[in-house]
């Protein structure tokens, strides 16, 4: 049933290049500051060094990029391809398939076949006046390759071999263990590591300068802590914080607390309160709640319910409570071990889709038991 909503625009391709249609000022910063060349890639020095060589030798192996989200995998391969082929040839030399495309074996085979069939032609000077190496092969990027089925991966092996002369594959994924060994062994592997704080800082400072927002060291620290080496997250947080700070008149400076709030970090006081309910002594805390019966079942259950009502995510509670417990000097090794066991089981349970409230309660009860068991 046709509706006005889905009126296709035949001459508008959803593929690469369309992002230029947007005014840069209105672009989310993650896209606006996506590295244009591989030299813009922060950190990942080793990868960049190796790839820079391939730019001059123009010989490319099959490649496998892996690493956590937001560390530059997709950006790197897109930048590399753009530098190899230039803007004009990018479209007909690079095929990007990702998990959102239909990726049955037969589809891949067909697409790759038709794509690889047209022999690449060398070219002279690109429309932007620069010359590009434009080596005589095509690049097929399989982004998010870890969500491909085993069968599809197996079939890909053959496809890679059949078309080896004129195609290079680049597999991109988060979890390298989900790529079958025969496929992985055909590729040069590049590991993308979470960004270190120095690289994150310099990239964020660069963006802040370009966008004319003020960030102080506290804010940068908060961004680094909350993003855990995921630059995309750090950039998104920075942008939202700056939106918020410029929305008032006069603009207020961005604060570290605001970054934490945006990042979904639970305020320390909330986690500490919870820990106290479980019988953990917090050093430096104002009052230590040691009232007898102070951590009865009911009290703990009520506290857990309150946390759930406040909407804190289960995994976030676990993560922060875990840090608090393992770093607490007043707990014994045994108490910490028992708690850690509970954390581990709960993490698995939540991954399996278990009820958050039941499992936070379970962890809470076990911690409080571990603590009580060694008290005189």
């Amino acid at each position, binding site marked *: 049933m046709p509706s*006005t909503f889905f009126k296709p625009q035949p001459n508008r391709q959803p593929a690469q290049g369309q992002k230029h249609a947007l005014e840069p000022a209105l672009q989310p910063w993650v896209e606006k500051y996506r590295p244009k060349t591989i030299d813009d890639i922060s950190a990942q020095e080793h990868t960049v060094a190796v790839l820079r060589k391939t730019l001059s030798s123009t010989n490319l192996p099959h490649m496998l990029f892996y690493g956590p989200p937001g560390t530059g995998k997709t950006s790197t391969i897109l930048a590399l391809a753009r530098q190899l082929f230039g803007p004009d040839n990018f479209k007909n030399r690079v095929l990007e398939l990702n998990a959102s495309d239909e990726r049955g074996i037969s589809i891949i085979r067909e697409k790759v076949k038709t794509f690889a069939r047209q022999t690449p032609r060398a070219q002279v000077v690109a429309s932007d006046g620069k010359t590009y190496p434009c080596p005589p092969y095509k690049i097929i990027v399989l982004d998010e390759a870890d969500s491909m089925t085993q069968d599809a991966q197996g079939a890909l092996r053959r496809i890679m071999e059949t078309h080896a002369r004129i195609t290079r594959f680049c597999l991109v994924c988060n979890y390298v263990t989900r790529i079958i060994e025969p496929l992985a062994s055909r590729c040069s592997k590049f590991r993308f590591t979470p960004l270190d704080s120095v690289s994150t800082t310099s990239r964020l400072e660069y963006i802040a300068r370009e966008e004319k927002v003020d960030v102080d060291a506290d804010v940068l620290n908060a961004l680094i802590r909350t993003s855990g080496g995921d630059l995309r997250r750090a950039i998104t947080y920075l942008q939202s914080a700056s939106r918020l700070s410029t929305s008032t008149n006069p603009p207020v400076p961005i604060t570290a607390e605001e970054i934490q709030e945006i990042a979904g970090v639970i305020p320390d006081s909330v986690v500490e309160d919870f820990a106290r309910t479980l019988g953990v002594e917090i050093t430096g805390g104002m009052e230590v709640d040691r009232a007898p019966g102070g951590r009865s079942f009911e009290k703990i259950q009520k506290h857990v319910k309150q946390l759930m009502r406040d909407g804190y995510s289960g995994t976030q509670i676990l993560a922060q409570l875990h840090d608090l417990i393992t770093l607490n000097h007043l707990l014994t090794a045994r108490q910490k071990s028992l708690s850690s066991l509970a954390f581990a089981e709960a993490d698995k349970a939540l991954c399996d889709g278990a009820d958050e409230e039941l499992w936070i309660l379970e962890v809470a009860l076990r911690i409080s038991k571990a603590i009580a068991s060694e008290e005189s």
Partner: protein
Amino acid sequence: MSLWVDQYRPRTLDELHYHPNLSLRLKSLAASGDFPHMLFYGPSGAGKKTRIMCTLRALFGAGTEKLKIDQRVFLSPSNRKIEVNIVQSNYHLEITPSETGNYDRVVIQEVLKEIAQTQQVDLSAKQRFKVVIINEADSLSRDAQAALRRTMEKYMSNLRIILCANSTSRLIAPIKSRCLLIRVAAPSGEEMQECMKHVAKRVNFPLPTEVAQKIIDDSEGNLRKAILCLEALKTQSPDLSGDLTIAKPDWETYCHKVADMIIQEQTPARVMDVRAKFYELLTHCIPPGIILKTVAERVVERVDETLKPEIMHWAAIYDVRLRIGSKKIYHLEAWVVKVMSLYKRFICGMDLSDFD
């Protein structure tokens, strides 16, 4: 006539009652052209959806309220027809993955692609992108989540996604990395008071504070439940006086009955009775996880302090098994047997110590 919950639902960010800072943040995001993908999370009835709709209105204007429902047919990879109802306005569209059965990936992928390839038909639209709201995002299959990843980046120029979920724990890291996370906490008691008083004022009747408090105590931070309840009470007893009893939903009463049965008697025969009750609940589509939790919480209310942690411990354990396993009834029943044996041992132990 629509229900009060719908009729008096705030329509703009300015009308929202609680979490003023959050409303302010949404307003400033909507006012800037570079609106990000977003993930709203929080307990049910906390007002996530209302906030999302208000944000949309701030983005596009009142046109987002002109909704129509389209029935669309998608083809699964095995050429099966999947029929899905899609709610949409000129500016946005909503999908609920659970309505698409096992094919959420196909449906989402098709919908997003179509939208990505279309432009805003309305040339006077305030934004160049359209918004796709994905309800119950935490029930998206892994496949569907994986399919969203690159799509969210590639089609960013004409598409924004707003995910709505109870919790972020079930979403994969790459998705969270692509969204701005917005936590919507349930309103506090006072905030709920305020909202209910507001509704009462618009309907034009006085709402005694004690009545409001009673409803609040019963609704566990779920504002939708509270307002529904208020309307029910008002129809029941127009002057809101006398002994107002808030009716619990049938399934809840039923679960409580099950809990009572477990405590009364611990025998194989009783296990059979309980099983019959479980079947009844399951056939009425009460999710097994909810059944387990409701029964467990009721049992715990009625047993000795020392037993409570253990009963909840086993509830947690069987809750996971229930999610992984395929025969829900086995795990529910196993938990019941476990609790019965714990309870019985406890009672016997007590008896013995009494003899000492």
